[in-house]
């Protein structure tokens, strides 16, 4: 339905996006995951026809978007990371203005505005000036504007940045509902792992302008399927215990932080009994042992050596 091929963007010496390939199929939610500065926003600006790529192309139903941007734009809703609204207009006035410039018929506009206000849970706030809204309400209206013309594809750039958990949950539920009820295709950009895990069918992980992994959630997690993570909580930090663990060749990665120890070992190795012996020998008091299955966060850490929110 929508695909980006070898998409590249250079700003003078800075290579923001380096030849990424990405595609969206009808009715799916695709996550674009990566830390700040990974190139996600530049990538979606190119995909949504707002900036021209240095190289590569974007195709919507086989139409070259660079040559005919209006074809995609008519079917596309974009939720920018910034609150792209007029503060001195009411919620209703904002929606009416954007509805009119999107050429929604006058006879339909009133109904659409009402419907969108209901969708985003702001029906009783329509006459309030946006500048008096909370951060969460502004974010919801920001999404509402993109929904006015009932787009086929919705691109959302970090739509939950800087809001309270309640508003965040509301937005996530709204996105899920739009996909399920209206079969809307969604490209969801975030650096919140749990949001992407909750919403998305497929995921692209970006870092430093490159897509470093892609696939379904399970496919991506399988990158780490050959390993298990053991999380050990000690009564107090024990250097002798850590030193003894470092000598174990079976451990592929070892981290010690305060009284926590993270051990990564091959999945087929039974290490718990050995771990208890080492603890006893080094007089380390273990409070708990947890064997974890890999999360997307672990995958990102594994691929880049950095945490997502660094």
């Amino acid at each position: 339905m929508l695909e980006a091929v070898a998409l590249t963007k250079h700003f003078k010496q800075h290579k923001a996006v380096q030849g990424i390939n990405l595609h969206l199929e009808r009715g799916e939610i695709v996550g674009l995951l990566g830390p700040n500065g990974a190139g996600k926003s530049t990538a979606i600006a190119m995909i949504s026809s707002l900036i021209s790529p240095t190289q590569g192309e974007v195709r919507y139903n086989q139409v070259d978007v660079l040559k005919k941007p209006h074809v995609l734009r008519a079917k596309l809703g974009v939720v920018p990371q910034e609150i792209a609204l007029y503060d001195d207009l009411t919620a209703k006035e904002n929606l009416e203005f954007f509805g009119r410039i999107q050429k929604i018929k006058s006879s339909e506009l009133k109904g659409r505005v009402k419907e969108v206000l209901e969708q985003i849970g702001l029906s009783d706030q329509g006459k309030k000036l946006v500048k008096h809204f909370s951060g969460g309400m502004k974010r919801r209206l920001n999404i509402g504007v993109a929904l006015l013309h009932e787009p086929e594809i919705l691109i959302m750039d970090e739509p939950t940045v800087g809001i309270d958990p309640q508003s965040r949950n509301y937005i996530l539920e709204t996105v899920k509902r739009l996909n399920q009820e209206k079969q809307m295709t969604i490209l969801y950009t975030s650096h919140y792992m749990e949001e992407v895990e909750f919403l998305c069918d497929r995921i692209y992980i970006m870092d430093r302008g490159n897509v470093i992994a892609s696939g379904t959630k399970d496919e991506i997690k399988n990158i780490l399927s050959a390993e298990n993570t053991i999380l050990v909580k000690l009564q107090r930090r024990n250097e002798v215990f850590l030193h003894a663990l470092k000598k174990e060749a079976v451990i592929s990665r070892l981290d010690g932080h305060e009284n926590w120890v993270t051990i990564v070992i091959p999945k087929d190795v039974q290490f718990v009994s050995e771990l208890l012996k080492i603890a006893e020998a080094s007089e380390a008091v273990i409070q708990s042992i947890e064997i974890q299955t890999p999360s997307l966060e672990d995958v990102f850490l594994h691929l880049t050596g950095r945490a997502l929110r660094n």
Partner: protein
Amino acid sequence: MRVLLSFIKKEFLLVLRNRQELLVLLAMPLILITILGFALGAVLDGEVSPITGEAALIMHTSEEEEFNIFMNELSSLKLPEEAKLQIEKQAEALLPITILQSEIFGDSQLQSVITLTELPVSQLQEAKEAEQYSAIIEVPEQFTSKMLKSLFIEETEVPALTVYSNERKELSAGIVEDVVKSFQEQFSLYAVLGREGFQMEEGTMLSANVSGTVETLTKKEPIGAFSYYTIGMSVMFVLFIAATVSSQTFIEKKRHVFDRILLANVPRLTYVTSVFFSTFIIALFQLAILYTGAAVFYGVYWPDLVALLCITLALCSVVAGFAVLLMAMNNRLGTDSSTKLFMSAFVPVIAFLGGSYTPVGSMSDWIVKIGELTPNGAALSAFMDVQQGAGVAEVTDHLSVLLILTVALFAVAYLTFPRKARAI
């Protein structure tokens, strides 16, 4: 058209809900019209001179003594007693220093400009050194007696009055010099006329000749201070609408609202045109409010409403042209520095050149010429002409300047506006 109207409505609401902007666009000009109208009203209306000064008069001999000297000389002449009485009577009425003090410097209009104070001779040096006086008139010994002798008895050399001018008070000192010079010339004339047998009657003598009716060189109706500053402030403050709207467009760009506009497939020309017409309409409302306010509060009325409307529309077009240009420049440069420069430097300079603060007619020719080519200057001149009774046909030169500027600004703006504009 519907899209265009949406933009205009949106822009209008944004300005209307911004109290700070409203204060600058409406309250400020009205306050300034009030202050300047009252403060400079008397000056501009010719009721009060902005120049004032003090002059000192120092006489080496009192005029009474001088008159006695003259009378002694007259009595020694072999003339019939009746003739002597006649001369005495005329001489009493023509005491030059008395006339200078009471008739000339005593004239109410000259008094509002120059105050004459008599000082003793002993204070001459002190008065010269003091900064207080614009000029000192020194009356030498035998001035009056010789003047009267010259007028009534025989041609004789009259000692001249000496005027010491304070170069730091050039204007008021110049007035004193001119008055004294004119006074001496008139007395010399009367001396000649008197000797040729013309009778000078009491009461027909000199006056400072500073009174009279106010008449402008162009024979047009004079403009009152409130009218002048209503026009001056309006043509200046309407320019700020361009800054207001272009700032708003920059915020649109910065906040990615402009991205939404692009994604809505709004053509580039529609967007540029919407900025033009939004500014045009807002400027029109601003001027309408200012002119209505001036009419209600200060009685500033317009003799020709059609001419008023034509100039107002042309001025609003130029303002809209500026808004579009600033918007395009901000968009291209990715900063709102163009708008800031326009507000902080460009508007004050052209407001001065255009005559918004003070009439520039008395300044150098090149300032006047440049001023008339500025949008506010051209509009101000046109509005003033209408206030003085001119119609549309007589202000076509100024209207042409405004329309040419509009077309030029719009064209440059359209070319400057990036073809692939997007948010920052």
